């Protein structure tokens, strides 16, 4: 058994298509590195044990909790955060639908929901309301009561399929 070493690691991280070099301890969570070291504060930190979904990012294109991931694990993987989705003057179809349907109030949970469903709607472009609810169960929202989020996801899905909605 050898003594642990706790020196910071030098990591090369690929986030939203850009490479960032950071020097962080091995125990530093991906959520904290995104926010503190890279200034990407769209990834929100809620429960820090994988329940609330606010820190959800994409790892190699698939949703994952940034609070259950260490930045050190992400070398060689592609991380995508909510900052890669839309811009204030050019919202994504999902963001636009959330806006129109009042799918957010305080906005704390919204980044995790946007990231999760940007991926889910690519995997399942024509979901039922029940399927949307099942996926949405992984993101806690204390403002909306969820109804408007479900409506927004269905609206965005219809638009992304090219149907009027």
């Amino acid at each position, binding site marked *: *058994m*050898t003594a*642990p*070493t*706790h020196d910071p*690691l030098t990591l090369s991280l690929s986030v939203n298509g850009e490479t960032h070099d950071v020097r962080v*301890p*091995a*125990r*530093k*969570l991906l959520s*904290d590195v995104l926010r503190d070291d890279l200034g990407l504060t769209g990834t929100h930190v809620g429960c*820090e*044990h*994988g329940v609330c*979904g606010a820190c*959800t990012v994409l*790892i190699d294109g*698939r*949703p*994952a*909790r940034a*609070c*259950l*991931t*260490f930045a*050190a*694990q992400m070398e060689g993987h592609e991380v995508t955060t909510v900052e890669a989705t839309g811009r204030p003057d050019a919202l994504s179809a999902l963001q636009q639908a959330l806006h129109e349907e009042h799918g957010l109030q305080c906005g704390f949970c919204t980044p995790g929901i946007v990231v*999760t469903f940007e991926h*889910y709607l690519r995997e399942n472009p024509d979901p039922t309301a029940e399927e949307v609810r*099942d*996926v949405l*169960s*992984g993101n806690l929202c204390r403002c909306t009561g969820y109804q408007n989020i479900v409506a927004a996801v269905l609206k965005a899905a219809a638009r992304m399929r090219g149907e009027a909605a």
Partner: protein
Amino acid sequence: MKPAPFTYHRPASLAEALALLRTHGPAAKPIAGGQSLGPMLNMRLARPGHLIDLNDLIELDRVRVKEDMLEIGALTRHHRLANAPEVQRSLPLLGAAAASIGHYAIRQRGTIGGSLAHADPAAQLPLIAVTLGATLVISGPAGTREVAAADFLQSIMTVDLRDGELITALRFPLPVGDRWAFEAFSRRHGDFALVSVALSFARDAEGKIDALRLGLGGVDTVPLRLPEIEARAQGRLADEDTIRDLAAATAAAIAPEDSEQVPAVYRRELAETLVIRAFQSALTREEGA
């Protein structure tokens, strides 16, 4: 809530991972999907000196149908298990149980090997492994060994995994009966179930039950398979009377823990109801669906 300091290791092969485990002994902890270990690290319920990241061992992320078994690599994620055509064709019960784990994002990361090693008494995959008589393949300092899931799971979060060992695969015997169901009750969607029931059986030409496999989660420190109920079902017509009799016998056969939050009588009633639902669901599902 931040983890205690640890040294991070990222082995590129199974051999390297096993060597690291041997070098660092009890101070080492392997991490796969991290969906259970992550919270334990964040809450400092686990404080390993060395974290051995298994995620580069992609050879352990595989689903393979062999002649008489379905072999699932330990690093196979729940989402893949829930959607793999090989699983849906040969063992849809396993896929359905995997699809019910936690939440969408959790299923993208969580692995079957991790679920078995963590051994939460209410978890889905240990229940399916016990119910269907799966075998774990384990590599370690003494080579490779196989152990039945029912022997591997010893108690709450306690398993037959010795220092330096890693689960590399699960083997589910094939074929199983084409009637199956997984039923679970939890207070909130995505929570661990209070009680869960897995069953599979075949029906002969006269509609009689053959080769029932029945397992219950959440009623003991480990998932329970109930051979006496399986024997009681053999050769009986799968009708309402039989189902109710088997459900009542199941409830009588278990001795769940009694707590203020979840009284034993409540768990027993849940078990009876879920067994009835499971049979009904198994019998009404369209062939091939």
